[in-house]
């Protein structure tokens, strides 16, 4: 049986190339992105260079996740049993809708009308905030960057730094206009902005009865969940409320506690360029009189099983959401996250999003890369992102074989020409003959400024050369003849 694909915030209304064009037209955005991505990538490179065993750590990170992929059903059952033994309730959600329904029901059971949230990509993926809002429940983000985005009524632009597309002045304006209680005199000094957010959030933490989190890792042996964060807001959410609901993708499993040793070295260095993570919270079930007294874990599939079915593509599930690939990607650096339409942008998003939804639903994202390979080199779990991109491009083309396309006609024709030397030779001569009058018109220059569609896409930003007056093979034949050898 084929596993179902996922739903949720995994694609936008426009194809990547169109959305990218819109984003590219914002000079301030490009400057913000360039500054931020270069700062993080430099920091990462520095701390990674400090570790003599970095390559071994990457290999371990890859190997453990490959093992998880092979043993997933068994590990999930093991996790469920351990979590239940520790006092948690485990729910299973096939897709975004089901997960939202479960969480909404659980919040409603408590009678609460609001919930505080730990930053979580999984809840963004399923559109949980919107679902809770529709049920009359306010969901408040407590991560600083996530809070900025929520106040601005915007969407995240980065996996780790959702507000990466804003600079400090823009954040100050958002706070002044949208944050309850923020002073009109608020400056753009980082400490003043952080203090304003802290005061605002403190009130929410102290009144909240329900918290919603995701998890960076889920330990199968013990039923433990792990959240890795930098601000301490997560820890407040995980300890203060009575009820904690954690939405966890089934790809977050690791077999045992010892495996965390690998990832807790790989993750902070790759993501924020820190040697050690500031706040790492681990929680296992409930403890009477300490922390949340009711704990629910929603295990989410949403296209993950379908992704697992592809022998090449499944490595995307090893992703630990460090976002190092975003920070080195030349495409992401120029467009930002919104162009990708999905909550998972950048190179990893370009392979995760189409696999979760099914490639046919998301055909432009596998092409949102120049295949430069910078992402492969920084991935802490050695996902061969470019390999998967090429694979998905193949699937994207195959998914549209039924409908006519000029590109396919051209590719077929070219394949037919290139697979036979005589046809190739004739085509080469024809191309040269065809462009010879043009070269004459250009007064012997072999560079052209405007080409007709579809090659006009090339001349939109660069001049194009014309075929050479003599091809290499013609030179070779001439040379051989001169030497008295038969070509």
């Amino acid at each position, binding site marked *: 049986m084929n596993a179902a694909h996922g739903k949720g915030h995994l694609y936008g209304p426009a194809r990547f190339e169109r959305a990218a064009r819109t984003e590219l037209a914002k000079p301030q955005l490009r400057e913000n992105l360039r500054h931020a991505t270069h700062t993080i990538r430099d920091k990462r490179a520095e701390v990674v260079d400090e570790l003599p065993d970095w390559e071994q750590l990457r290999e371990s990170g890859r190997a453990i996740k490959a093992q998880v992929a092979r043993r997933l059903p068994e590990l999930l059952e093991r996790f469920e049993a351990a979590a239940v033994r520790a006092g948690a309730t485990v729910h299973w959600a096939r897709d975004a809708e089901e997960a939202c329904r479960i969480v909404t029901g659980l919040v409603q059971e408590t009678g609460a009308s609001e919930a505080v949230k730990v930053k979580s990509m999984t809840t963004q993926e399923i559109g949980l905030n919107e679902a809770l809002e529709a049920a009359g429940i306010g969901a408040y983000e407590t991560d600083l960057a996530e809070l900025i985005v929520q106040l601005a009524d915007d969407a995240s632009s980065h996996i780790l730094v959702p507000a990466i597309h804003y600079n400090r002045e823009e954040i100050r304006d958002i706070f002044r206009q949208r944050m309850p209680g923020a002073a009109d005199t608020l400056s753009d000094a980082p400490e003043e902005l952080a203090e304003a957010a802290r005061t605002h959030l403190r009130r929410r933490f102290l009144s909240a009865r329900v918290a919603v989190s995701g998890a960076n890792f889920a330990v199968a042996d013990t039923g433990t969940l792990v959240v890795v964060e930098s601000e301490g807001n997560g820890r407040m959410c995980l300890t203060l409320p009575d009820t904690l609901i954690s939405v966890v993708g089934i790809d977050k499993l690791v077999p045992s506690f010892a495996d965390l040793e690998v990832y807790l070295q790989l993750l902070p260095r790759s993501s924020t360029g820190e040697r050690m993570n500031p706040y790492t919270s681990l929680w296992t079930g409930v403890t009477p009189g300490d922390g949340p007294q009711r704990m629910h874990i929603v295990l989410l599939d949403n296209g993950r099983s379908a992704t697992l079915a592809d022998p090449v593509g499944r490595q995307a599930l090893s992703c630990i959401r460090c976002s190092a690939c975003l920070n080195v990607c030349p495409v992401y650096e*120029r467009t930002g996250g919104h162009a990708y339409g999905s909550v998972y942008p950048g190179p990893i998003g370009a392979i995760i999003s189409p696999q979760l939804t099914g490639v046919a639903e998301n055909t432009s994202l596998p092409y949102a890369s120049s295949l*430069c*390979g910078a992402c492969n080199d920084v991935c802490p779990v050695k996902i061969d992102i470019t390999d998967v991109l090429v694979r998905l491009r193949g699937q994207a083309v195959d998914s549209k074989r039924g409908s006519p396309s000029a590109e396919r006609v051209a590719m077929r024709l070219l*394949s*037919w020409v290139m697979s036979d030397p005589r046809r190739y030779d004739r085509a080469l001569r024809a191309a*040269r003959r065809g462009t010879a009058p043009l070269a004459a018109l250009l007064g012997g220059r072999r*560079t052209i400024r405007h080409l007709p569609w579809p090659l006009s896409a090339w001349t939109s*930003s660069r001049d194009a*050369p014309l075929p050479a007056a003599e091809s290499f*093979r013609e030179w070779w034949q001439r040379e051989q003849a001169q030497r008295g050898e038969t070509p």
Partner: protein
Amino acid sequence: MKIALFVTCINDMMFPRTGVAVVRILERLGHRADFPQQQTCCGQLHANTGYQDEAMPVIRQFVRTFQGYDAVVAPSGSCVAMVRTLYPQLVGKDPDLAAAAAELTLRTYELSEFLIDVLGVTDLGASFPHRATYHPTCHGMRALRLGERPLELLRHVDGLELIPLEGAEECCGFGGTFSVKNPAVSGAMLDDKCAAVLHTGADYILAADNSCLTHIGGGLHRRQAAPRPLHYAEVLAS
């Protein structure tokens, strides 16, 4: 040693001088390269764009052409990367082709690999009294791990002043059909690469791939800027 020159389709049609340069370099070293005229293309354009079925007959033609040579030398990082890294993945369904392709991947070299690793030469006795900067193309740098090889060869060129390129490791934005499928992003990447090249004040921009050079050179030409694109083989042959 039976050496075959894979000149690549782009060089064949647009930049024949690059192929001529490789022939001259090998001759200077006392080797006679054969140019099997059955050759067409490596199939990269098709495979990278998602037309894997359409790539197969082209790959078959490539494997057929170059069987039986001790070494296949190509002046293109990306075409060699196609053979070495993508062929094994693409030919899996056809056992005979897979075996022949696997054997071929071991004997296919980018020019600098062949000169340094196989022939053990770094000084080609070339002379090129100009200022140049070098762009290490993505496939050469990351897929093939050419490292310093092309630069090592260029450092032995008499009179050549090599000026470092800022952000050299960043993609120029060509990416095959990426440049026409995502022209806006590709153009934005090209803007930055052109600015970096202009900043060097060099007369020439060198690289191991004429496709990237067409893109960068086209950008510079559009800006009516001076640096001229040139394949590093032509410098080595000078």
